[in-house]
């Protein structure tokens, strides 16, 4: 298992290097630069040149790239031009906010999705199955940002039960209950679509497993129905559900961009949207690199979990 993980980690290195080049080039190739974004209507050629000189953007592209990578290797991600603050500070702060949001929704969608999918497979075509299928369909077809706006309208504006935006209250808050109160709406919204997908796939996997011989054998041995389903069938079905959770982890990380904007959640997605529009090169590069690395790690984790459950996959 150790060598499997090491191999996978090594394979991730060229992916991340390639990505750093792509991100760097994309940011260079889109028109407009930080000086232009800072100066807006005042971007005379003189002013632009003056700012570019101050930011070191008057050097050649390869030079800029290697300076960036060289600093990165020493743990220095540079300073955001627009926020005037170390990139790493900003990215880590933002990323922890995204992880809280994505982690909470992943937890919700895994627990609810697997539970709903299993129940609905066991009672196929029963009323539970129909209700689950109905909600799954709504969850999958509703755009998350729209759902988010509806939640804000009812829970925050009409009933004033939950805060409409932010991660903490600006006064007095800052503790765990305060965080949870702010987390309910965005994490719930983000989880809904993912829950539908997980429930659907769990249901399909369970249905397939339930038809297999070993389940019949277990039943024939006289095991109770609960033990058959949870100890045997469910475990087998998980093998195909776990990689889906890995993909869902990527999905909620990506979906967080919209949700962070709607709920003003101070996460990485919201930061990247703004950083791209202000051409904050180092911030975009740093943010994407960190996000990609985590994405690679999450997928690795999912594969390892699957391999643990199903020894045939270890190879």
């Amino acid at each position, binding site marked *: 298992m150790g060598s499997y993980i090491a191999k996978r980690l090594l394979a991730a290195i060229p992916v991340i290097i390639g990505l750093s080049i792509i991100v760097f080039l994309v940011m260079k190739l889109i028109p407009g630069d930080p000086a232009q974004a800072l*100066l807006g209507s*005042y971007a005379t050629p003189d002013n632009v040149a003056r700012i570019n000189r101050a930011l070191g953007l008057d050097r050649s592209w390869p030079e800029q790239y290697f300076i960036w990578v060289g600093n990165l290797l020493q743990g220095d991600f540079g300073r955001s031009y627009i926020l005037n603050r170390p990139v790493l500070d900003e990215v880590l702060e933002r990323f922890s906010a995204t992880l809280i949001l994505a982690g909470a929704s992943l937890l919700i969608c895994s627990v609810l999705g697997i539970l709903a999918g299993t129940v609905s497979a066991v009672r196929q075509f029963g009323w539970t199955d129909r209700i689950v299928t109905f909600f799954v369909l709504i969850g999958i077809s509703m755009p998350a940002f729209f759902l988010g706006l509806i939640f*804000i309208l009812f829970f925050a504006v009409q009933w004033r039960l939950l805060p409409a935006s932010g991660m903490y209250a600006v006064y007095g808050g800052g503790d765990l209950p305060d965080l949870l109160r702010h987390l309910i709406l965005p994490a719930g919204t983000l989880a809904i679509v993912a829950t539908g997908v997980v429930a659907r796939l769990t249901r399909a996997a369970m249905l397939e497993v339930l038809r297999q011989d070993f389940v019949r054998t277990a039943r024939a041995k006289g095991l109770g129905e609960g033990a058959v389903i949870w100890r045997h069938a469910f475990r087998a079905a998980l093998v195909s559900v776990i990689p889906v959770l890995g993909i869902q982890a990527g999905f909620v990380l990506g979906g967080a961009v919209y949700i962070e904007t709607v709920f*003003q959640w101070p996460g990485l997605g919201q930061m990247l949207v703004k950083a791209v529009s202000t*051409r904050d090169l180092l911030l975009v590069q740093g943010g994407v690199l960190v996000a990609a690395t985590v994405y690679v790690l999450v997928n690795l984790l999912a594969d390892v979990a699957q391999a643990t459950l199903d020894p045939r996959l270890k190879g």
Partner: protein
Amino acid sequence: MMATALALVGPVAAQTPPNVLVIGQIAEPASLDPHVSTAANDFRIAVNLYDGLVRNKPGTLEIEPALATAWTISDDGLEYTFNLREGVTFHDGTPFNAEAVKFNFDRMLDENHPFASTGPFPLAFFFSSVDKVEAVDDLTVKFTLNEPFAPFMSNLASPTGLIVSPAAVEQYGADYGRHPVGTGPFKFEQWQSNTSVVASRNDAYWDGAPTLEAVIFRPITDANTRVAEMLSGGIDVLLETPPDNIAQFSNDANYQVKEVVGPHVWYVMLNAKDGPFADKRVRQAVNYAVNKQSLVDNVLQGTAGVSAGPIPPAFNWAYNEDVQPYPYDPEKAKALLAEADAEGATLTFLVTEGGSGMLDPVPMGTAIQADLAAVGLKVEIKTYEWNTFLSEVNPGLEGKADMAEMAWMTSDPDTLPFLTLRTAAFPAEGGFNSSYYSNPEVDKLLDEARVATDQSVRGDLYKQVQAITHEDAPWLFVANWKQNAVVTSAVGDFELQPDFSLVLRDVTKQ
């Protein structure tokens, strides 16, 4: 379990504390170093933490004393000597004096200054006419200019002229922007990234301590979320309300809607070098053809007024009341087009998706397109994201387009015409005259206005500029934006300022 759930969702969540004003801002500030920042969003905070040597008198764009109590200008317009206010200290306890003023401007203007690296200072060119700053004595400071430059006083009153604490810059270096120290009515307390900036009352403020105990600025980028926060009681002041929501708040006794016309112009530049707009009659024709009143009433829902020329009415001392907006007259437009032999011309129109001061650029662009179609002009719209748009438009429209949207907010009536309407401001010369408008008379008037230190003389010159440019129609003049804010009924004495700053020193909250 149930108890926890109830504790999490109690309606107590939606109350702001007494005597603390919570403001829903449009974005996270970039920096609270006023010399580094370029955004109105940041300046709204900065003007409450800092003072400049002079400031705009509340409700106007006229200069009044602030950290300087009086000043004299030499007859040749080259020397400005300021007497500084006595006994003022920065929030960090260090004294405000002539050396501090010198430090502020040297840092921005001298690339070899020991703290020049705490920049870059994008708007430092506001003061590029300053040759040197000298501390004559502790409370007297003298600016020497390398050429007469009448907008100097307005620029000193702009946020780029705010005075920061030299000791704090020395202490925090490049991180100063997150540890701002000024002399203003509020003292910086805390900046929680992406959550809030908190400032508390400066009890020792030279102009009388504010009533409010503290102010909290919350960044809420999404306009709908900002409205939701206002409705759910999370903020006391809502800035930049979307036009669609204004009516909802004005019809509700729990809220007050505040509006003020600012020094803003929204226009469409017309390429006078090549294509149909090289003919003045075609330029006038489009000014007659577009129904601007309908545009500001329907597309912008009354959040702007109709513009008559390149100088916004907010500069009342320089605004020519006699110049009226072109009336909506499609028949006259058709006649002019026929006269100029430009009927049925095809025009390329550059439109941006968003951008500073651009209001609602896409719907505005399509409304203009429809009005021009009604007089037989075929307009092809090309849409760009803001930064891309600027890099398309700033080098000039020649060979590329006939029309392009643009908007400016300025602190002096000189800035916009000087940078966009002079012959010497063609893009090749480093200016923003992307439509290549050229009239020697306008050039001469603008040059004279720049060196005239008497405000009434300057005002007359700008009034003439307006009359001429209105006739020449280098642009399709469209709108002057009204800045708006919604406050709850608990908030008192809140007024928006024509310079787009947010002055909170006299505001109260029950």
